[in-house]
């Protein structure tokens, strides 16, 4: 009898301690409606490390710009426009760099908002007629974490996967992106309570027909990467996000390619009713 009673008391004590020490749950969310405009800096680098028999070469493109995200009057959409872009490359010639620069200025993506959260729907990408716009849409999907709809504690995990079809010169390809997220930690920086979200992802490609399969033979059709995002928990905005992505080395004899991408997004300023805040 004594032993049983003691066991019960220990068990109650253990449960009590567990609930006392458990971290509180947080609502990790983004609400773009808090301001009229958000200005982010975006930097993106793509590089190919080639080895052709004995010769090695790294070819790269880098693009940096500002993204002006403006909330429309109806508050139903956010319009994202790139400006002040800078491009450098050791693979593209002057005409191509100028072409990217000019078309980059025209990139304007409109995203629907639900409760201030931008939505990246699968139909959204197919509605973009410009192939370059679609490329940027895909980068945003990789770069921005999907946040859960309920309060979560540090250590919580969740995942998502999505597919999209797009056209290449050789035909249609279906891409699949799988992301696995974890709520890493909460920290305080001056007055701000910040959440760190980490994720790992896999981006794989499937050609839609045999012609495409043959053309893509030997190229890496999947890659893996990781990302991290910092979110201001109280003011509900994305402070910073970055990803790294790379493909495995291609299996062709005499030729190898490793494709890498890095992207980073950071808040520069917010604008509300003509007032600039940093």
């Amino acid at each position, binding site marked *: 009898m004594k032993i049983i009673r003691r066991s019960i008391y220990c068990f109650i004590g253990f449960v009590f301690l567990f609930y006392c020490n458990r971290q509180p749950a947080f609502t990790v969310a983004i609400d773009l409606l808090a301001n009229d405009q958000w200005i982010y800096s975006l930097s993106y680098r*793509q590089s190919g490390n080639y080895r052709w028999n004995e010769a090695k070469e790294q070819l790269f493109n880098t693009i940096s710009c500002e993204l002006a995200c403006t909330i429309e009057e109806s508050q139903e959409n956010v319009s994202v426009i790139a400006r002040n872009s800078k491009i450098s490359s050791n693979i593209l010639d002057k*005409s191509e760099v*100028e072409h990217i620069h000019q078309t980059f200025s025209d990139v304007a993506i409109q995203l629907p908002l639900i409760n201030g959260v931008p939505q990246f729907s699968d139909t959204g990408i197919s509605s973009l007629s410009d192939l370059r716009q679609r490329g940027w849409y895909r980068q945003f999907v990789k770069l921005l974490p999907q946040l859960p709809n309920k309060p979560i504690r540090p250590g919580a995990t969740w995942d998502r996967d999505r597919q999209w079809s797009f*056209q290449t*010169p050789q035909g249609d390809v279906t891409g699949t992106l799988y992301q696995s997220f974890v709520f890493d930690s909460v920290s305080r920086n001056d007055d701000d309570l910040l959440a760190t979200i980490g994720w790992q992802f896999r981006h794989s490609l499937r050609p839609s027909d045999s012609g495409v399969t043959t053309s893509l033979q030997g190229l890496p059709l999947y890659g893996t990467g990781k990302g991290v995002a910092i979110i201001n928990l109280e003011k509900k905005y994305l402070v910073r996000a970055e990803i790294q992505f790379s493909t495995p080395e291609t299996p*062709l004899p005499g030729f190898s390619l490793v494709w890498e991408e890095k992207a980073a997004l950071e808040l520069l300023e917010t604008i509300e009713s003509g007032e600039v805040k940093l």
Partner: protein
Amino acid sequence: MKFLELFRTLLVGIILLALWVDAKDSTLEIKKDTVLTSSLIVSKDQTCIIHPGTTLRFDGYCAIIVSGLLIVKGEHTRPVRITTIGRAHGSKELPTWKGIELHKGSEALLRHCRIEGAFRNAVYTTKPVFDSCEFVGNHYALYCVSKATPHIKSCVFTRNKYGIVANFSSPLLLDNRIMENYVGLQMMVHSRLIAGRNIITGNTIDIQSEEGMGKNHDATSLKEVWDLMSQLY
């Protein structure tokens, strides 16, 4: 009174029907010199006709994007010209507009048309006809992709970076002159050329053929791989 009401109803019905037909099959006709400050978009159910002697100039880095029907009715003595404001005739400067994009499902007939200063005139999975046209000072004068089979007849390609590029497509070429370009004709992997008499001469590289990775040590193959990887990821 009943007759009047019936007449009124019929009249409204006819007007509505006319509006519906008009909206369904809208045609844009360009009959005089025009400056465009934004891209010209020809949607799926639309037709755009550019009449002889017309010069279309873009003010800005714009494009002609065609998903419907494009007819350029130039004549030998009154060709149509598509270029940009301030661009000198025959200039080899950097491209100053995006170019013509003929998308899947579109139809196009371009006759006696001079296209200058575009970055890329692209044909995606369709069968347009280019007859007696001139392509001058473009980056990619004609870029055929994704099973496109354009008919290119009696055209001149000169002072372009790339004259005709076939990427997974099969252009039909007859009686064309491809001269003074950097690359006259570039055949990518899985492209097939159906050619009659053509003059391809005086280019830095007359004909360049991509054999596929691992076999061609030319830097341009790297470029092709680069372009593909950029589009995939």
